[in-house]
């Protein structure tokens, strides 16, 4: 620890100690459980892993989970940016309340959120009735899953983009406007590039959060095999069958896919940072 290679120059002492504590806790809380999952996979063997994952129903569930997470996170990307923008740039009555409310999805147990959303969007629910009249079913369809995932992922984009917008000087936008750029052009060429890294981070966080979401989804999903059965539920089902190997196999598949997606997002992030020279 004292070789100096790992030591970043800092005015404060104690890197060795804090690094040790960090590494230990990270191992115990994050790395060991993941390693245990992968270790289980190693004992199962690649052939058996593939047999479990290549099952039609497992593929359907994995596809649904990642598809719905993607849809919800894209929505949150746009809506989160809008919400953050409104919160930072405008002053209106109740702004602090709205700002505080953004964090509520973090605080609420997801099962409670799921039950509340189901009650509202069921065909006899407050919103569900209106949609049912228009012939649209939300609860117990994939739309319901999107809704639950939008709910749990919502705060991520807002909270990552908000501080960046606060730092951005509105003078650049004003300069762009006085030089004759249209509003859309200013947004596209001046504002968005600065926000892109933060937006990508928020998007990645929201995506990661919603891929593994279980509690809120099972109440609103309908849970029909091939149609509205999410991968985490299938893992639970395999556990109910005391089939720990199959459960681990699906878990590993999710881990690998999620890791690949997050890695790709990270790469895009690095690329955009370099392009706009921001970091």
């Amino acid at each position: 620890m004292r070789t100096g290679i790992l030591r970043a120059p800092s005015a404060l002492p104690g890197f060795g100690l804090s690094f040790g504590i960090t590494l230990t806790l990270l191992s115990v809380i994050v790395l060991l459980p993941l390693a245990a999952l992968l270790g289980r996979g190693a004992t199962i063997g690649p052939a058996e892993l593939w047999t479990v994952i290549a099952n039609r129903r497992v593929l359907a569930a994995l596809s649904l989970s990642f598809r719905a997470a993607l849809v919800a996170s894209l929505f949150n990307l746009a809506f989160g940016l809008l919400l953050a923008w409104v919160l930072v740039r405008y002053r209106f009555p109740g702004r602090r309340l709205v700002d505080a409310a953004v964090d509520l999805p973090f605080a609420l147990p997801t099962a409670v959120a799921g039950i509340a959303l189901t009650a509202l969007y069921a065909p006899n629910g407050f919103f569900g009735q209106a949609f049912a009249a228009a012939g649209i079913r939300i609860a117990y369809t994939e739309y319901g899953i999107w809704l639950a995932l939008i709910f749990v992922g919502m705060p991520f984009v807002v909270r990552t983009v908000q501080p960046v917008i606060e730092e951005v000087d509105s003078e650049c936008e004003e300069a762009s406007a006085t030089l004759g750029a249209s509003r859309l052009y200013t947004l596209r060429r001046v504002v968005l590039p600065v926000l892109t890294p933060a937006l990508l981070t928020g998007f990645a966080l929201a995506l990661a959060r919603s891929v593994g979401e279980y509690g809120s989804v099972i109440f609103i999903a309908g849970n029909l095999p091939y149609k509205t059965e999410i991968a985490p539920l299938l893992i639970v089902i395999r556990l109910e069958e005391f089939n720990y190997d199959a459960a681990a196999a699906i878990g590993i598949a999710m881990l690998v896919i999620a890791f690949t997606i997050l890695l790709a997002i990270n790469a895009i992030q690095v690329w955009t940072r370099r392009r706009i020279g921001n970091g």
Partner: protein
Amino acid sequence: MLLAAAASAEARDELLNVSYDPTREFYRQYNELFESWWQAEGHEPITIKQSHGGSGGQARAVIDGLEASVVTLALSADIDAIAEQTGKIPADWQSRLPHNSSPYTSTIVFLIRAGNPKGIHDWGDLVRDDVQVITPNPKTSGGARWNFLAAWGWAMKQYGNDENQAKAYLSALFHNVPVLDTGARGATNTFTQRGIGDVLLAWENEAFLALAEAGDGAFEVVVPSVSVLAEPPVALVDGNITTDEERTAATAYLEHLYSPEAQALALKNFYRAWDTSAAAPEDIARLPDVERLTIDSFGGWAKVQPAFFGDGGIFDQIYGE
């Protein structure tokens, strides 16, 4: 998990009853009954904690280390699983208490909307195109497995023990299921609160409970021509018992379930109890006679569990695996 286990190992003037969904109300009342009886017998006061959820999930929680003193689950297969996987319960647990360790039994009935607008009277009506059926998922709910077996039993009878026709019947039935909740209570809520479906396949006690809660005659109970003798069993989790006092209390807790007062309470909560000597006549009269197939007539849980509900079993085949 480790921290929780260590904490609960210390405080042992309490018992933990790990149960399944629809017994919530019954055990809340039984715990009061037992606690006062226990003190009247001259023992130190004892607190009973209860934990509810899907039966299979509860069994797995105990397997994974939840320190249950006793388990009161929906199926003997779930307790068998705890016995096999942890060795904390002896293999012959089911013979330790009377009536296969089931202090009360139940059956599967239909809960339908008032006035029976769809004219639902028996299993055959459930596969009609205009009928939507609500049942939880047999993979995650013990009650749903009884639902499945009751339907299977009827179909086998109807089609002269032709398994393929029975499978086709259940396939048609599940084709009419728009929502598969993970537990019995969730399915009841989907039917009663969210207004989904024309018929709920439910534990008899759960159906009567929904009836009582709705109050204004919103629902009716229909008893099909054939159903199952559901035996929700109870067992002491020997491996989790740390002291003699705890063993005495936990054993008494289960044995007292067979006392006339507890049996009357079970009847009041719409369970079919064995001992009716202390029960109110209206509680007995409410539960009609119905032909009930035993689990043994399907080959016993050891055979039924993998064949019907295991990976690639009949339930999976119905969904085209």
